[in-house]
């Protein structure tokens, strides 16, 4: 029986690239939910812009992942849209953090809690900035090229998000409480950003890129300084662990995908 889902190559270099691509794609998807709903017009523009940059990064990475997969299997390369829209949930490899709703538990906020949103942006952009910087030394020239462009975007995203974290963390009592609540919920999703496995080991060995674990010191150091400046206190570490980067997600991703994939699924053979 035919199925329109595609199965990406499970070669480690493909998985390494897809993990990053999916991180960009799914965060872009969440940020785009803000279109037209931000607290001020400048933020409507900034969040849309960040989403756009992330989509651009995802496109480049998906195209490259498709080619890496094709080289591995001597097959035809999956294109960016097949990879973005036609995989099953189990084959998306983003860490769980980026698929969480823009408002985690916070009732009432539509499309989300701005505190949670800017704090997550600060975490992910700090992490991506560290990652892109290290990918400048990749043995894969295509990754070097992608990282060279992306690092500039990530630097802007990081600065913008960090400004908001400080502004809101050290703003009013209410804003500080909202930021602290967001931090308390989000913190336990961070360890997944610093895990490693055989995919990372391969990437290191092949000089493709860094093991995620090697980003921890830099990212957590920067987050620590930022939170201190914002007068926010990280909660104690917990034994909670997410597994999105291995394809086992939260219950949120399925809803993102049903919306995101709908047109591709409902109009097979469509040309857009």
């Amino acid at each position, binding site marked *: 029986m035919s199925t329109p889902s595609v199965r990406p190559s499970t070669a480690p270099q493909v998985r390494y690239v897809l993990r990053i691509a999916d991180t960009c794609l799914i965060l872009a998807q969440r940020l785009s939910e803000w*279109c037209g*709903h931000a607290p*001020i017009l400048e933020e409507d*523009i900034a969040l849309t812009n960040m989403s756009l940059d992330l989509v651009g990064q995802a496109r480049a990475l998906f195209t490259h992942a498709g080619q890496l997969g094709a080289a591995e299997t001597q097959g035809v390369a999956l294109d960016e849209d097949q990879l973005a829209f036609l995989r099953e949930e189990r084959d998306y490899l983003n860490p769980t953090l980026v698929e969480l709703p823009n408002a985690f538990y916070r009732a009432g906020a539509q499309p989300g809690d701005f505190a949670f949103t800017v704090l997550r942006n600060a975490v992910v952009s700090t992490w991506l900035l560290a990652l892109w910087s290290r990918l400048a030394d990749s043995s894969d020239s295509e990754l070097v090229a992608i990282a060279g462009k992306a690092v500039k975007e990530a630097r802007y995203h990081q600065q913008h998000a960090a400004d908001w974290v400080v502004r809101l963390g050290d703003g009013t009592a209410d804003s500080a409480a909202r930021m602290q609540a967001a931090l308390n919920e989000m913190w336990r999703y961070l360890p997944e950003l610093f895990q490693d496995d055989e995919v990372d080991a391969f990437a290191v060995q092949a000089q493709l890129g860094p093991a995620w674990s090697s980003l921890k010191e830099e990212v957590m150091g920067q987050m620590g300084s930022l939170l201190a400046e914002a007068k926010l206190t990280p909660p104690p570490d917990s034994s909670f662990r997410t597994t999105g980067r291995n394809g086992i997600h939260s219950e949120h991703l399925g809803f993102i995908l049903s919306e995101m994939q709908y047109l591709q699924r409902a109009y097979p053979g469509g*040309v857009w």
Partner: protein
Amino acid sequence: MQRQERFDERIDAGDFIEAKDWMPEHYRKTLLRQISQHAHSEIVGMLPEGNWVTRAPTLKRKAILLAKIQDEGGHGLYLYAAAETLGQSRDQMLDALHTGKAKYSSIFNYPTLNWADIGTIGWLVDGAAIMNQVPICRCSYAPYARAMIRICREESFHQRQGYDSLLVMMEKGTEAQKAMVQDAVNRWWWPCLMMFGPPDAESTHTAQSMRWGIKRISNDDLRQKFIDATVQQAQVLGVTLPDPDLKWNEARGHWDFGAIDWAEFWRVVGGEGPCNRERLNKRVRAWEEGAWVREAALAHARKQEPTAQAA
């Protein structure tokens, strides 16, 4: 009265009026109303398009849509800034929007129901907007004219992208996609014709605005110009415009078209269109739910002041 005469002379000479120049109160108010309404239209217009951004069918189309929405936010920014030169703050203008005192373009009170609506908004809605706006690039009020030059350039780009996305579906797409495009055109055509406003005979502001160079071409003339330009594009696209009375009039050198349902126009302008309440409610909610963010930003900025002075 000398100021008034000098102003009139400059207008008649086709000079531009700058923010620092003296201007009659009625001129100022008319412009403020028009520019703020235009700014509001840009930000309300983000909603029907934002409605499809999470469902865009390809990454390329998602990127194009995001970029377009971002541009519209930018247009809102320029236009609020241009209006602010006339003495009203952005917050005051937003308050007028949120309380229903200020209007925005009625076209955004129609829903986006399928993906082709996004392309159709680019092709027809932006197309109609450009027809309306190009003459404003020569508007007598310079800050508005300057904003419009930049906006029109970007709008033309959006229009081409919208048309292109429909063309791809019509030329290379499936039957279901073609039907989707036709369905979108069927729903948007008549509301787009209404975007040029009521017939000249019923239009209240036209004469004075013409005199001042705020408006340069009449509603009916713009509408005819839009129809004449669009019929041919529709033929290239391969869609049928939903007007059986549409036919070329050799004598007039224009396309004749059927009667516009002005009752619908007034109903939507009056607040009872398909999405009026939802659009406004979303803007109000975004503003209210964001209040704590704006307050915190202000509080933080105040905290920095003494530090800055001490340093």
